[in-house]
């Protein structure tokens, strides 16, 4: 059976799993809307700050929040995997003559699908609030979000496979996500930070995603971050996915 056929089977299984869970679906739409209704009104006085984008305040804030969707959407994916391992589902799939990489990739692609849909809904909903979207930039932004989701989801799966324990996954996921996003300047541009903090942020892969997303949303294709993000994120994602794939080979329950 071809890799693509197997991948499709595992991917569709995951999609159906999401659709069965209306609570999770509504939350993913709910959160962006909460940002728009509860947070955006507070931003009216923030225009014209140094380091901010010109034009609507959402053009500064929204890209970072989109990146946060990809980070959170990926980092907590491991919980369901732990549950599946406990039920013996992963062991059962491993005995079939199907590729372990297809199993991993199917799950990661579902996480990517979920985040991209959220990003589309969020961005679409923000336009009436005044967000200005560069279409070409937004398309590339989606690619960055996809990569970022794949990175964090694979990492979450790797931790889930290695420790098979929620009590280990929770603190690791928390340490990696919020501090990572803050250091990347996801809400307020890290340009506003003192020197040492700015330097530190360059060691955070999420920093490049946030900078690139902000640039792309506003049509600034020339900014360094736009190519730097691929240089940083693509190898890192490949490495983490490779690690998770190897760990899949050892699961017994």
């Amino acid at each position, binding site marked *: *059976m071809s890799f693509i*056929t*197997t991948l499709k*089977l595992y991917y569709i*299984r995951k999609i*159906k*799993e999401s659709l*069965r869970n209306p609570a999770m679906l509504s939350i993913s739409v709910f959160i962006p809307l909460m940002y728009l209704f509860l947070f955006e009104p507070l931003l009216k006085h923030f225009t014209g700050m140094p380091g901010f984008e010109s034009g609507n305040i959402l053009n500064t804030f929204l890209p970072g929040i989109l990146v946060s969707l990809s980070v959170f959407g990926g980092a907590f994916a491991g919980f369901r995997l732990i549950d*599946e391992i*406990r*039920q*013996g*589902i992963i*062991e*059962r*799939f*491993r*005995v*079939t*003559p*199907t590729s372990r990489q297809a199993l991993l990739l199917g799950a990661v692609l579902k996480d990517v699908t979920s985040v991209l849909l959220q990003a589309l809904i969020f961005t679409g909903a923000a336009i009436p609030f005044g967000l200005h979207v560069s279409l070409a930039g937004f398309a590339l932004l989606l690619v960055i979000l996809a990569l970022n989701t794949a990175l964090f989801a694979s990492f979450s799966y790797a931790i889930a496979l290695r420790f098979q324990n929620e009590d280990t996954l929770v603190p690791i996921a928390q340490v990696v996500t919020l501090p990572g996003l803050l250091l990347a300047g996801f809400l307020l541009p890290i340009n506003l930070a003192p020197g040492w903090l700015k330097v530190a942020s360059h060691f955070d892969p999420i920093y490049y995603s946030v900078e690139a997303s902000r640039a792309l949303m506003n049509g600034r294709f020339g900014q360094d971050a736009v190519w730097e993000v691929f240089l940083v994120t693509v190898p890192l994602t490949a490495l983490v996915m490779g690690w998770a794939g190897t760990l899949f080979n050892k699961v*017994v*329950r």
Partner: protein
Amino acid sequence: MDTLLVTKGLSKTFPAKGESIQAVKGVDLQVSKGEIFGFLGPNGAGKTTTLRMLATLLGPDAGEAYVAGYDLLREPGKVRTKIGYVSQVGGSDRDMTAREDLTLQGRLYGMPVSAVRHRTMELLKALNLESMADRKSGTYSGGQKRRLDIALGMMHRPALLFLDEPTTGLDPQSRAQLWDEVRLLRDQGTTIFLTTHYMDEADELSDRIAIMDEGRIVAEDTPKALKQQVAGDMVLLGLTEDGSLTLTEEDSVARQALEILQAEPYVREAAYVQGKLRLYVHQGEMVLPGMLRLLDHARIGLKSVSLSQPTLDDVFLRKTGRSLQEAVQ
């Protein structure tokens, strides 16, 4: 007789704090086509580890194996096409219905859509899951879930089905039902390899068994042959009513009975203990009528007869010095 599975020197060691644990120490096994092979041993004996190696889930550290016609170490992918595996926890997804899960399973084995539909219906019927086929398996009872797990393992019609502790946690009725289903699978041509810590499962359900203790095989044969090797059946004959004979009279009657019976070829050991003749015989159920006739002929009165056959626990005890029941945590 076709051999469907053969292992030689299969071993597995696990690293643990400081030292390593040898879970499986050089296992040699042979399973013939069309039999139910039982792998009996206390918890921690290494049965599940062995099973996982044979099912391609764990890599052996040493030894070799041929499973369903393929070299386990060189062609695990091909082995996977021929085997089914049902772990102790099962592997069915509690959020999917039986029908959905079976369909997925069939597609994972590359079965075409129409074949999948047909086989799903066949299995749902055979394993009595039709009435709940479209409810999430999380709502099933223990026995129903276990049947679904077996159906999943059988979806692609494997030549060899591995079952890890298939009846653990089931009530007696579900257990009996499952045994019948396993026998039916065997009758239809599937070879079954199951692990168990239940003596009766090894004894009554399995055609041949291997007994494992602390990583080693300590015995391998049919349950009957193993039990016969150990001691033979025990026959207890109560000679007289208490008090109807004097001690000396009782003694002489016993001696006479012993003399008669010890001459018989099927009697291995005989003694007079606590008012009863205790004899260890070969195939007790066959020879008992003859024994009774002999004693009757010699006018020796009997007040009671009992026949007990050795159990696999006796076999385990003989081979390891411990009782299987003690060893079970």
